[in-house]
């Protein structure tokens, strides 16, 4: 079997992007009337939905915290979201791990002390997966939380980066992701320049790590710019509709 050429001699990737380029991003807010906040997020061919319910009454009474809100996250992939059909759509090990990671990310960002004895639910559904679903879900959840008007320390944006054939690449798609190189999902607070999630489980030299990390940060910043610009437009439209800020 011939090896796939991940970087062409011209320095372009399999889908025609340059190494530091993220895929096309598109999103919509407030899709669902019954959820408190919701977002549809598209990054290349990866498409996810996120809905936020709450702050609301705690489902399991024992889990309630007297000084803050508890956060519940659920990530699931639709059976038809991948090339080969996924057998169990919910509660497999990978989904649970991602749910936990996303919950921990948002626990540090949402101002939970403002809502003691409540629960905030974040549900994410992957409709189409083409690499980077974890990061796409964090971005979607972040947007849905903003749509729900839940106070946060900062925007959370997330982007993965990796390295193939010695070249650092940002925002890997499915083909690049399955090449077996390192994968480094990162979530940052762009205004405060802080890291809230970083995962890397592969062998890399320190120099290479610095390079990949830099790529991921660049990716996050690009995504933040796109999300922020559109969010301001959407907010402007809302204000214009109401004709007042209050």
């Amino acid at each position, binding site marked *: 079997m011939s090896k796939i050429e991940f970087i062409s001699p011209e320095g372009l990737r399999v889908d025609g992007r340059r190494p530091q380029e993220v895929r096309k991003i598109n999103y919509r807010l407030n*899709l*669902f*009337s*019954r*959820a408190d906040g919701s977002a549809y997020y598209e990054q290349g*061919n990866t498409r996810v*939905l*996120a*809905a936020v*319910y709450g702050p*609301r009454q705690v*489902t399991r009474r024992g889990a309630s915290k007297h000084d803050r809100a508890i956060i519940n996250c*659920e990530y*699931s992939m*639709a*059976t*038809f*979201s*991948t*090339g080969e*059909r996924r057998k169990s*759509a*919910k*509660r497999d090990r990978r989904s649970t791990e991602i749910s936990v990671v996303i919950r921990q990310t948002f626990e540090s960002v949402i101002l939970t002390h403002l809502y003691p004895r409540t629960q905030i*639910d974040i*549900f*994410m*559904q992957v*409709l*189409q*997966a083409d690499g980077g679903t974890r990061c796409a879900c964090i971005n979607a959840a972040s947007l849905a939380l903003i749509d729900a008007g839940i106070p946060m320390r900062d925007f959370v944006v997330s982007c993965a980066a990796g390295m193939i054939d010695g070249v650092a690449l940002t925002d890997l798609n499915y083909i690049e992701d399955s090449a077996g190189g390192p994968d480094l999902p990162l979530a940052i607070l762009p205004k405060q320049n802080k890291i809230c999630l970083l995962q890397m489980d592969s062998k890399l030299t320190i120099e290479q790590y610095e390079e990949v990390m830099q790529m991921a940060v660049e990716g996050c910043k690009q995504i933040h710019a796109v999300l922020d610009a559109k969010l301001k437009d959407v907010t402007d439209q809302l204000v214009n509709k109401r004709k007042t800020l209050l």
Partner: protein
Amino acid sequence: MKLEASADVIRKLHPLEFYKRFLPEGIRPDGRNLNKPRVTVISAGSLTTAEGSALVKLGSTSAICGIKAEVTIPADTEPQCGKLVLSVELPPLCSPNIQRWTDSVEQNSSLEVQIEDILLKTNVLNLEALCIKDSSAVWVLYVDVYILEHDGNCFDAALLSVLTALTNVKLPEVEVNEEQIVSIVEGGSTQSLELNHYPIPLSFCILDDKLLVDPTSEEEELSSTCFTIVYNNRGELCSLYKPGGKHINDDILEECKQTTLNRTEHIVKLMKQANEAKK
């Protein structure tokens, strides 16, 4: 603090009283007449990872259906018949009342059984058309429906999304070699599925002794009974489903049957338009 209660507050505290102010006037809180279904939007082929897909919106209720095709060995008793595996999911994303996956198990199963019965017993699809090679290889269609937003009447949305997705399916051309290995022909044509008929559903509920067409989830919760009628595009009755609740008389049923029958043509047209728009 102001003691005046706004309409929204009354709606939350005394929902039934709230509805009783509207229904005698022949109008519902969302502005519809009692016998008017919500705006129905059907689109097909939006998912690229599935062999066939459809999104159906009934007002704000929305269902997405994706169909994946795989090759399998047929059952010994039916060596020429393909298979159809249906699943319906109501993820916690879809409604504030469903907080965990396990909360919707009963609802999922009853929707699955209802839809599967209609598809298989009224012979919507020729399972023989899914045969690749006698008694060695057939297609199995995994039909998965996700209710993305549950604002009442998700049966109608689910069934319509399944039908539209089935008409949207494109099966690749395959060949079988001597070792019985099935492979896709590179650059081959694709095959669509022919449906024998289109069973079109319409659901009703009785609220405060008034008959309401296409209820929202608020109306479903307040209603004394809900029922569904399915007619196909040839004017044949395909299914009646009234799971318990308050008793109804024949003339109400007759009236509902007529309303359903009148709607079939419009919906079949929407489905065909959705599929043509994708071609």
